[in-house]
């Protein structure tokens, strides 16, 4: 069995920032990521971020990823395993990993779970046809690998992801036939919706998908209007000819590893689903096992960055590595998180943390 002090599962914004801050406190760490490259979902975000300068506002996600990855790769205290999947997590802080073709066991002293989130799906007839992709998959395909998902696409969901990905599809040269939204209002920021409308993309509210049509691939999509009781209105069906359909109906925390240990978990829909109950230091109910980023609540990348920094700091302290500016930085990160979760768009997250209970920092 191998032995490591701090293992960080997931090399997205939260995991990378946790490793960087642990190194700042003099603690060495190992980042394990199943993907061929680090950066998580940042590597496909071609749009500029909102928020404050500290969380890289006005910078494109792809450029934030480059900066964080460079910092991690140049730091001698940080080891990185890519193409490696953590397959088991145990309460005594043992993890098992499939590294390329090798199966390894590691005894750790502290663990950070920064596994991110997974795409939700929708129930409708033929929702398993090829050509029906999650919004994250569409972004990966076109922004990482330079391949269009299709030539004519319909977007389901008008949250920020649905709106932003629709615009990115147009930048890639894909015709976006429209965005459909089951609710009565557009879910995302007005600035994104207006941009789409100026480009001539219609947004249909009170509309959902009834079924997909096609043999071995989606060829058509049938939509239907909903009344104020969310019932389908007969006769309001419409058919769209498509070669791809994009589903942007939200994300859910990837907690499958946390579910393998006896840490307290709770279902909180505002935070994306099943989430770990955390202390104010993002520690789970098992001392020395921490969670941050979308794995503990689905929020913006900027929150994942700050949570990662916080966890890097507190996990190091748990291991005896105290950052010289520990208290000052910790208060700064907690204030940043409060700030990111303030205002009308942070309300859902604030309600979620209230429901989660425990001494959370929201």
């Amino acid at each position, binding site marked *: 069995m191998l032995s490591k002090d701090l293992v960080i599962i997931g090399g997205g914004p939260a995991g990378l920032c946790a490793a960087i801050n642990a190194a700042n406190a003099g603690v060495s760490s190992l980042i394990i990521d199943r993907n061929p490259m680090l950066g998580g979902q940042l590597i496909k975000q071609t749009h500029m971020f909102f928020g404050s300068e500290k969380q890289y506002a006005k910078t494109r996600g792809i450029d934030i990823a480059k900066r964080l990855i460079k910092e991690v790769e140049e730091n001698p205290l940080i080891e990185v395993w890519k193409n490696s999947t953590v397959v088991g997590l145990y309460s005594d802080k043992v993890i098992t990993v499939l590294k390329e073709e090798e199966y390894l066991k590691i005894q750790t002293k502290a663990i950070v779970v920064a596994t991110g989130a997974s795409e939700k799906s929708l129930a409708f007839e033929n929702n398993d046809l*090829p050509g029906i992709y999650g919004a994250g998959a569409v972004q990966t395909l076109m922004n990482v690998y330079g391949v269009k998902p299709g030539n004519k696409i319909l977007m389901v969901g008008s949250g920020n992801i649905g709106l932003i990905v629709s615009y990115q599809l147009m930048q*890639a040269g894909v015709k976006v036939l429209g965005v459909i939204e089951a609710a009565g209002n557009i879910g995302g920021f007005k600035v994104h919706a207006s941009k789409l409308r100026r480009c001539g993309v219609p947004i249909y509210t009170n509309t959902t998908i009834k079924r997909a049509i096609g043999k071995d691939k989606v060829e058509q999509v049938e939509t239907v209007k909903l009344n104020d009781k969310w019932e389908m209105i007969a006769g309001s069906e419409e058919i769209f000819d498509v070669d791809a359909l994009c589903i942007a109906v939200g994300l859910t925390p990837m907690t499958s590893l946390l579910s393998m240990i006896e840490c307290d978990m709770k279902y909180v829909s505002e935070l994306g689903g099943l989430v770990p109950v955390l202390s104010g230091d993002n520690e789970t109910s098992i001392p020395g096992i921490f969670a941050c980023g979308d794995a503990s609540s689905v929020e913006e990348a900027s929150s994942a960055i700050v949570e990662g920094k916080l966890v890097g700091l507190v996990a190091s302290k748990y291991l005896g590595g105290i950052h010289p500016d520990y208290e000052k930085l910790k208060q700064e990160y907690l204030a940043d998180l409060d700030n990111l979760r303030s205002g009308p768009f942070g309300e859902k997250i604030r309600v979620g943390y209230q429901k989660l209970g425990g001494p959370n920092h929201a």
Partner: protein
Amino acid sequence: MNKLRIKEHPILDFSEDRKRINFTFNNQSVYGFEGDTIAAALHALGITKLSESASLKRARGFYCAIGNCASCNMIVDGIPNVRTCITILKEGMKVESQLNKGELNVK
């Protein structure tokens, strides 16, 4: 072939000449480019049906493209249940549709 490749983009640059990687899909010779995942290379060729579901034999393509959902599983060089959306293409790979739950040939 490779009609779905993005050539011009206002932010990203895909103009770089990448090395061609030859592989087979269900015994047919095809190619992708260095750095592609298997699923991305197949999609660029217009191949969206990767495998079939085990019991109802429904067409299967990828859904999440980040290694979560297992919808992209295929047989690669004889190994079943390979997540082709996060597996980088290599020269000479033998990629096949998977029609069952997968059989492991233990040596």
